[in-house]
Every structure is written in C-alpha cells, then in structure tokens.
C-alpha cells in the first residue's frame, strides 16, 4: 500500500513536472490542481474508507509526494533550465508563491476527490460533477490571471473533442471506419463561410448558420455514406478516405462554377444545326463563372456570433468562444448519450458486433448505417461552423487527410465507443499537439542556441544538422503514427475503454484474471452506471 502510494505520487508528480518544466513557474498553479484531480480520480478511487476525512488522509501521502516532485521540478526549471535556455528566471518571491499555491492546490483537490469516493454513489457522482464543473468554468479566468494563454489552444482541443465525439458514433458505435471525416468538417466550415461572409453578400446570423451547417453536413453524410454501404470494412475505409480527399479538392476548385442545362444549351442547338435550322433556344443557366470558395485564398472574413451584453465575439478575448464551444460540447454529449441508449444506438452496436445476426433480428442495417454517417457528420458540421467563425478564415488545405487521422487518433487513444475516453483522448492529443510541442520547441531552441550549439561550434556540419532537426513540431506525424501503432499493439480498447468494446477485444483473456490496468485503477465500472 505504502509502496504504491509513493509510486503513484512520483508518477503524477513527474507527469505534471513535464508540463511545468516547459511552461515555467506560473503553470504550477494550474498543473497542481489538475494533477491533484487526476490523482484523486485514479489512485483515490482505490481507497475503501467510509469516512470522508479518513479517506482524504489516505491520499495525503501520495499527494504530498506528487507535490514535492512538482515543486522540485519547478525549482529546477527556474534556476537551472531557464538560464541554460537563455530565459530570465522569474522573481524568487513569485516562484515561491506560485509553488506554494500549486502544491496546496494539489493536496487539497486530491484529498477532496478522494473524500468524495467515500460518499454514496449518487452523491459521489454529483460531487465529482460539481467539482469538474467548477474547474471548467473557472479555468479561463485562472488562465488569463496567470497569463498562460492556454484558452485559445484549449478551444482548438475542444473543437477536436466535438469531431471525436462525432467520429465516435461512426467508428465506435457503428463500427464503420471512416477515414474521410475531415470532409464533413470542411463542409460545415464552408457552409458557414459561404452563408455568413461579406464575400458573398449573404451575411446570415451565426446562430442560424450553425444549424444550417450541421444540417448540410448531415445531408452530405447521407449522400457520401450511401454508396459506401455495400462495402466491407476495409474497402469502406478506403472509399471514405477517397471522399475525404475529393471534398477539399472540390472546395479548392469551385472558383469558376458554371451550371447550365445541357439540353437547352447544346443538345437542342446541336440538333437544330444538324438539320440546318437556324432556330436558337434560350440557354438555361443556373450560375455562370461564380466564385464560390475563392480557391486557395479561402473565405475570409467570416461572420461572428453576437450576444446581448457580450456583443460580437472578438478574437482577442477567447472567453466567450470558450463557453460557446463548451455549450456545443455539452449539447453534443447530451444528444450522443441519448442516442447511445436509444433503439438506434443499440442497433448500431448490434451491427458492429455482427451485421448478419443484427439483420436477422429485424434491424435494418442500411438505415442504421446511413443514420450513423449522418449523425456523425452533423456533429462535424457544428465543429466546422464554430471553427469557421472562430478562425475567421477557411482554406481548403486545412481540411486534409491528416485532420481525419488526428481525430481517429484521439478516439483510439481515449477509447472507442466511450464518451469520456473520447474527451480525454482529444484533450491529450490536441494538448500535446498545440501546447506541449510548441513549448518543447521553444525550450529546445533556447537550449540549442545557448548551450548546445556553442559547444558544437568546431564541427559546422554537425551543428547545422543538430539545429535543423531539433524541432519537435517536425515530428508530429511521427507521434500520431506511433500513437496508432502502439495503441493497436498494446491497448486496442484505448485508455478509458467502454466495457463492451473491451470485452470484445479481449474475449480470449476473459478467464485469465484481472488485467494490468485493473490492478492499477480498480475494476471498471460498467458504462451504464456512470450516466
């Protein structure tokens, strides 16, 4: 017991330290709270104590260890690493204050979450949700107070969480591997762009356009899903990939669109000419040389949402955007939960397990699959509309294959078929991509410029090679690829698996006793009980 508590304390301290050593002293406050929560939720769940205070006392040891590790790394960062990377160390008073706040926050939240486990299940749920809600709501304010500027990046992560939730319907619930999911994201974004940009003189209100974008994406989900239905799993993946490739190409090339009725425009004139008649017909033209998407230049600017008291959302203030995307996510989670437990949701899972058997039981697989595509695409449409309005400009190159794969990566890492898993996966992957790698790049660049490169001055070739390749952002595809390969090899059900999916993937090991992660985190709660 004592041994594991020490070990988990050290592990979580190092995890937090990884972030702190890149972001500096201020981040200790935020990271302390997050690590405290994570510690309480994982390690604290094992504490079997009916008294809240006693339960919290159990958590004191690992939390203090984690806090000590965190503080040690923070101090190391400030006084050893910061000078080596050419940064000015923060003022000692601030560092000490931030570290004390962070360490206390860690211990407090770890104790609090552990104490919650001692409550009856229902109250425990409410308590956890309240704690989570409190943190989510206060986060952007703490962030802007600490000056970390994480909120804009978090908004990106949340956009990918919505995409992940949508893709999870198609891949996780219905078991259809969709490799062209970015297409629907693009369709949502371009619908928003075309309907609300001054470029087209339409200027519709964002609150209307976001629903239209979702509906248009959903309809395209039906249209693109329909031809793929007869295909087997891996062929379906390749065809959806094809659609994912074609859609951005189409958007890139819709710059001179001419739609004419072929009969009146050249079949009839051709016939007349053939018979020597000089009659001319009126050519029916829907549009002529219309520039719909402005090609590579993209649609820019795009209209923004407006609310009373807040006014039009601005790019320099991420807080309204944060709460908007949060609202969209909550709505999505609610809808997807309901879908999951509905007749349709059960039909999806039946099809995933065995399509033939499901069809025999009276499920219409065509209808269920089409609806899965359409629903998945709809959520992508929401994300696309938000993205367009938030970035204010959309370009075809943004929606390429890698987006589809990053979304796939988030749901595979988090756990196919499980909403909590998808959210965690999205936050981890996008946090790594948008926060951790850029910070690591800065850190390495500082380290290179101030410490490593001067030491290599004698060998010019080596110096050049090192300076060129010491950029972690260059390796992001490698990291995504490794995530997929390693997860498939080691833990195909994801970090936070759904109970059903896991049983499916580990059917052979069913009788072999508890798995490794059960040893660490305790037995998994069946999904139904969490809701």
């Amino acid at each position: 017991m004592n041994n594991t508590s020490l070990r988990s304390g050290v592990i979580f301290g190092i995890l937090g330290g990884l972030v702190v050593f890149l972001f500096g002293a201020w981040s200790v406050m935020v990271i302390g709270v997050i690590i405290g929560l994570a510690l309480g939720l994982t390690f604290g769940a094992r504490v079997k104590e009916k008294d809240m205070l006693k339960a919290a006392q159990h958590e004191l040891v690992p939390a203090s260890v984690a806090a000590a590790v965190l503080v040690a790394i923070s101090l190391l960062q400030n006084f050893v690493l910061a000078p080596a990377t050419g940064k000015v160390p923060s003022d000692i008073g601030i560092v000490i204050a931030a570290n004390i706040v962070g360490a206390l926050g860690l211990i407090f939240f770890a104790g609090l979450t552990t104490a919650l486990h001692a409550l009856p299940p229902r109250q425990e749920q409410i308590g956890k949700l309240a704690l989570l809600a409190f943190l989510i709501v206060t986060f952007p304010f703490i962030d802007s107070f600490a000056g970390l500027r994480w909120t804009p990046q978090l908004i990106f992560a949340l956009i990918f969480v919505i995409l992940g939730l949508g893709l999870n319907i198609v891949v996780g619930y219905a078991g259809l591997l969709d490799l062209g999911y970015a297409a629907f994201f693009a369709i949502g974004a371009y619908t928003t762009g075309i309907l609300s940009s001054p470029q087209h003189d339409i200027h519709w209100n964002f609150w209307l356009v976001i629903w239209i974008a979702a509906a248009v994406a959903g309809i395209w989900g039906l249209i693109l899903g329909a031809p793929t239905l007869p295909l087997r799993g891996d062929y379906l993946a390749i065809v959806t990939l094809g659609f994912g490739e074609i859609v951005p190409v189409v958007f890139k090339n819709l710059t001179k669109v001419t739609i004419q009725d072929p009969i009146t425009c050249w079949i009839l004139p051709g016939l007349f000419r053939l018979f020597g008649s000089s009659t001319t017909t009126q050519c029916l033209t829907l549009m002529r040389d219309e520039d719909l998407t402005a090609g590579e230049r993209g649609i820019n600017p795009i209209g923004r949402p407006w609310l009373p008291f807040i006014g039009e959302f601005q790019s320099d203030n991420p807080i309204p955007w944060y709460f908007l995307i949060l609202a969209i996510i909550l709505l999505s989670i609610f809808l997807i939960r309901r879908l999951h437990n509905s007749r349709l949701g059960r039909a999806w899972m039946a099809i995933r397990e065995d399509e033939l058997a499901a069809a025999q039981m009276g499920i219409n697989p065509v209808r269920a699959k089409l609806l899965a595509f359409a629903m998945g695409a709809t959520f992508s449409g929401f994300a696309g509309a938000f993205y367009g309005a938030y970035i204010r400009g959309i370009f075809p190159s943004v929606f390429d294959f890698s987006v589809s794969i990053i979304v796939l990566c988030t749901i595979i890492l988090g756990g196919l078929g499980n909403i909590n898993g998808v959210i965690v996966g999205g936050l981890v992957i996008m946090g790594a991509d948008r926060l951790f790698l850029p910070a690591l790049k800065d850190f390495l660049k500082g380290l290179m410029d101030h410490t490593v490169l001067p030491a290599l001055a004698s060998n010019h070739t080596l110096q050049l090679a090192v300076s060129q390749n010491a950029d972690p952002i260059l390796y992001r595809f490698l990291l995504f690829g490794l995530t997929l390969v390693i997860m498939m090899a080691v833990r195909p059900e994801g970090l936070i698996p759904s109970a059903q999916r896991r049983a499916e993937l580990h059917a052979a090991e069913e009788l072999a006793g508890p798995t490794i992660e059960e040893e660490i985190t305790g037995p998994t709660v069946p999904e139904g009980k969490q809701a």
Partner: protein
Amino acid sequence: MRAILQRLVIAALAIYIVLLLGPIAGFDVPVIAARIAADPPQQLLQFFIIGIANGSIIAIIALGYTMVYGIIELINFAHGDVYMIGVFTALTVLSVAGTIGTNPSPGRIIVALVVALVIAVVFCATLNATIERLAYRRLRNAPRLAPLISAIGMSFILENIGLIWAGQAWLIPSLGTTGGASQKAFPDLLTSLTAQFGLDVNLLAGTGIGLRFTAKDLLVIVLAAVLMISLRLFVQNTRMGKAMRATAQNRDAAKMMGIDIDRVITTTFLIGGGLAGAAGLMAGLYNNTAWWFMGFRAGLQAFTAAVLGGIGNITGAMLGGILIGLLASFSDGYLNARWTNAWVFTTLVLILLFRPSGLLGEQVGQKA
C-alpha cells in the same frame, strides 16, 4: 418491358446529371470533344505513351498491395510510403555516388544507377518486412480493422521520416536547405545519358512519326515488364511461390500442410517492398521529383489499380496499373490535372460498387 424502361430512365437521368454537373469537375463533354477533334491524332498516342509509362510504375506498386492483400487480407496502407522511401534512398545513393551536378561520365551514371537500384530494392524490402514484423504480425488474429489502423499509423511514421530525410542537406546537398516540406529535384540522369551517347533525347526523332519516346519511357516500360514477368514466374514455378498461393487460398490448411506461414508472409512483404523500392527509383528518374507526400497519392492510385484488376490477382494488378496510368494521363491531358485524383477515386468507388471482384478477380462472397 417495364424494367427496361426503368433502367433507361435511370440511365438518362445519370447522363443528364453528369452533363449538368460534370463541367464543375472539368468533365465538359462538348469542350473535350472539340479538343480531341482539333488535336492531331499523334496527341492521343502521346498521352497513351505517357500513360503506359506512368501506369507501369503504378502497376509495380500495385503488385505490393495485391500480394499482401491476397495473403493476409490487409490493405497495407504504408506501402505507398515505402515507395516514397525508395525514391529518397535512390536519391541519396545517386548523390553519394557523385552523379549530381558534376557532369559525370556515362560509366559512372550506369554503375550508380545499378547500385541505386540494388540498394533501394534491398532497403525497401527490409523496411517492409520490418514493418510487418513490428506492426502487423501480432494483430493477425485481431479484429479486421486493427491492422488497418496500425498500417495507417505506420504510413504516418514513414511520411514523417521522409519529411525529415528531405531536410538533411548535409546528407544530400542537392536537397537544399529549405527544409523537408517542399518538393525536391531528382536528377534527370537518363536524359543526360542519352545526350552523352550522342542520341537525340527523343528516340523517335528521326522517324518522322511525330511522337516523343525517350530513353526514360523505354527504361521504365522495359524494367517494369521484366519485374512483372519474373514475379509471375516466381509465383507460378517456385516452391515458395506455390507456398504463397496455398497460403492465400487458405492459411490454416496451408499451415497444416507444413508451410511455414510466417516465412511466407515475410517473403511476401520482402518482395512487395523490393518492388516498391524499384518503382521508387523508376519514378524518380521518370518524373524527376522527390517529395515526402508522394507516397500517399501514388499509394491510392496503386491501390485503385489493384482493386480494378481484382485484388489478390497479380496479372490483374499489372492490367489495373496500366489502365489507371492511362486514365490519369488522359485526365491530365484532356480534363485538368487538378481533378485527376478525383477521377481515380471515382473509378475506385464505381468498381467497388459494381464489380468488387475487379476485372480479373474471381467472384467471391462478401467476407465480413
């Protein structure tokens, strides 16, 4: 009667929609018809030659897809990227051998080309077999989509390696220091070789046919034909080839007959990777570019070719490769190059929907 009428109406509607919306995707029938009528007949033949040469390269890559799919029913998504790595291997060897920039002698070029071919083939074969060992082998009995996802991950890893490789100016000075993301030049050695032997670049220049047929076209077509024929002979006539065919038919039964399945699969990946390496050298010499992302497009074209010919069928992959090459060439020539990939995909979707067994594949039931 009624059924025929129904079909006629559907066909008429389909044609109407194609004519109505086709121009958006460059498929403007009257414009194209006018263009073909206005061009001299040689132009059509010229596109034909280009199509066959490019199609040969696609066919060689397609062989790798089709053999792997035939044996373990996996779309080896990383295969196109193995080919891309082949391009960079060949480029590195040619650069180290001193054939870039310094006006090398013909003997040196020929030796360097042979060495580059051997190294690219060996390297890509080893790489492909290693990928199988690391990423696919333990997933052989997992749900069907697991190895596919693993293959996609591998593809990303290889693309990233290509991106890094293309940024190493200290290794290959001709890559330049602009980083790995841009397209890099691959030396046009065959053209300089013909010039050094005192030949016209166009081998048909003196004949008055009015077509252009260069040493590049000749080499690509001949080499592709040699590779395809030897592969076919290998699969048909050797003991290992027989084992491969047996494993493709029924893995468990083959195992019971004493065939070492792991060895057969490794050999398949070795051959596929080696062919991709050879295709890499050929494509580099023919198109004179090296790009970290080229494997993705080439891979999709090659996969389409494999499906078109009937996946698992070696002759089919060759046929499919040539047909896709021709399609791409005519689309580049008469429609617009930016739509070519879209047309290749449309072909893929249409084949999968209407003839999933491909042109030469045998009819098999749907396997879930």
